[in-house]
């Protein structure tokens, strides 16, 4: 044991009558009061409470009526009327909320399917094909990753308004499809999952590039597709600024914007809108939680491929 260690850690329980060996070292470490199993897991547990409690609050709030929301504590149950709240949520305004949910599935779900396919195709091409100016084109993709949404949103709104596409499904759907970050990930994944030798073999066999992609490469890239889909879906579901600018017809709203509209109306009828908002928020998160947990095998691969290169 080095002297500096005993100097810096006088708190370590070292009994002087025993020789310091490996066992001793292990002993003294586990006796460090600052970092023990209990402390480490205790801190992690506290952090987990901090992340989970606000969501718990939402779950409980969704079971309450307006009066109980203010008269009972945030984390205590009052009269549970979740079912009534849900019925009200889905029947209010001729099923407006259901319509918003469907819109969100179109914007985010179908959008993410198309966008992931586009990204995989381009990423695969950047990884496996030779073509002139390839790295310069890829440089353009990387610049695209860094373009802040702020620069494109306002001109897009004006372009859409010139073309009569504001207040239109396509005005929100189309601009979200091209994802430079997705193409970057697509290339990284293609490098990782599709061995070059495999493609060489099929090329020698004379299979066309399209067939090779569909029958050989795409099945290998399915985890990458799932990752991109998951990112696209959460991003699309959570989009707020763009629909806020583009849409004024509330029949076209995605669910987030719809909830925002209810929030603006809250003071006109608190009895009605508070439970709608709470229950609606809870229901609006559920598809994300389902997507996340069913595709959780993939998300970590995507996060880390993108960030730790």
């Amino acid at each position, binding site marked *: 044991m080095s002297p500096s260690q005993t100097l810096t850690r006088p708190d370590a329980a070292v009994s002087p009558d025993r020789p310091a060996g490996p066992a001793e070292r292990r002993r003294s470490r586990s006796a460090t009061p600052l970092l023990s199993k209990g402390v480490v897991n205790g801190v992690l547990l506290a952090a987990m409470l901090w992340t989970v409690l606000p969501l718990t609050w939402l779950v409980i709030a969704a079971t309450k009526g307006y009066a109980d929301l203010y008269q009972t504590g945030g984390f205590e149950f009052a009269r549970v009327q979740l079912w009534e709240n849900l019925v009200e949520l889905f029947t209010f305004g001729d099923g407006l909320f259901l319509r918003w949910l469907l819109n969100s599935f179109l914007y985010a779900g179908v959008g993410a399917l198309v966008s992931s396919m586009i990204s995989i*195709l381009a990423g*695969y091409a950047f990884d496996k094909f030779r073509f002139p100016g390839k790295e310069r084109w890829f440089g353009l993709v990387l610049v695209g990753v860094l373009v802040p949404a702020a*620069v494109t949103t*306002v*001109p897009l709104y004006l372009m859409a308004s010139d073309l009569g596409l504001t207040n239109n499904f396509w005005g929100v759907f189309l601009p979200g499809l091209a994802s430079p970050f997705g193409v970057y990930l697509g290339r990284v994944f293609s490098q990782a999952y599709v061995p070059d030798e495999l493609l060489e073999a099929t090329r020698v066999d004379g299979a066309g590039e399209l067939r090779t992609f569909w029958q050989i490469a795409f099945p290998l890239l399915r985890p990458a597709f799932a990752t991109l889909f998951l990112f696209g879906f959460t991003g699309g579901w959570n989009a707020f600024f763009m629909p806020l600018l583009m849409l004024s017809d509330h029949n076209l709203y995605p669910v987030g914007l719809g*909830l925002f509209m209810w929030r603006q109306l809250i003071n006109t009828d608190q009895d009605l809108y508070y439970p709608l908002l709470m229950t609606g928020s809870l229901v609006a998160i559920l598809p994300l939680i389902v997507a996340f947990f069913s595709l959780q095998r993939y998300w970590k691969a995507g996060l880390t491929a993108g960030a730790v290169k």
Partner: protein
Amino acid sequence: MPPTRSGLARRQYGVAALFTAPFFLLFFTFTLAPIGYGGWLSLHREQTSGLGLGGEPEQVFVGLDNFTRALTDPRFLGSFATVGLYCLVYIPIMIGIALVLALLLDSAYARAKRFFQLALYLPNIVPGLIAAMIWTYLYTPGLSPIIDALEKFGIPFNLGSDAGAIGAVANLTTWMHTGYNVIIFFAALQAVPREVIEASTVDGAGQIRIAWSVKAPMIRGAVVLAVLFTVIGAMQLFTEPFIVRDAATTIDQAWTPSLYIYQLTKAYDMGGAAAASLILTVVLAVASFLVTRFSKKGATL
């Protein structure tokens, strides 16, 4: 006869064009063209010709007028000051917490690592809008167990002040984004060669010492990248203050640059909005450059 190299290459050009066309077509239309259009807009102002009624609005070239207007507007400059202050509070706290949690997860003592990762990541999938609404309620005195607890400990939490507003938004964004960075840092830590850690253990370094002096420096790259992405995101802050201002009354229409731009857009001052967006982009580029530059310099020291 097997295809010759040049034949193969030519076939690849066509198929490469086919595979990349959908992306580039959309990218040109919905990213590059708007940037160009934004540049043009920033140099023009819409004016109604004639004496009001019946006149078609037309775009008049005004040079850099929109830029000088934005740069001399104290509200726009103030929005950068607010967002700068917010970054100084939020980024060290969020990245610090994420790093500590990742190091704890990576320590030999941590149990149920997968469960903790999932639980910590959970807020990241909650839409910013809904997260902001939840926290706005949790900030409302009388409703909020948190504010009640803080007041019991004698810590006044006044959302009506500027500091309170920044604290409220920073707490919300920290809640949302810490887990994401925990996952990234944890993955980077897993890639640290085990021999390095074993060597330091044999040398007698304690767990905390190893975590801070051995592991943390080795994931420096991941941390710098996380700071960079966080700066870019934080400076474009929009949704969170847009909602939280229901509880934090000092958040005005120009609290952040993005709120300022939104408010100009709603007022149909497109030239002003486009100019302000471009200024924000330049500031973002400078900030990104400084983050990477600063971290490189630090590495050589």
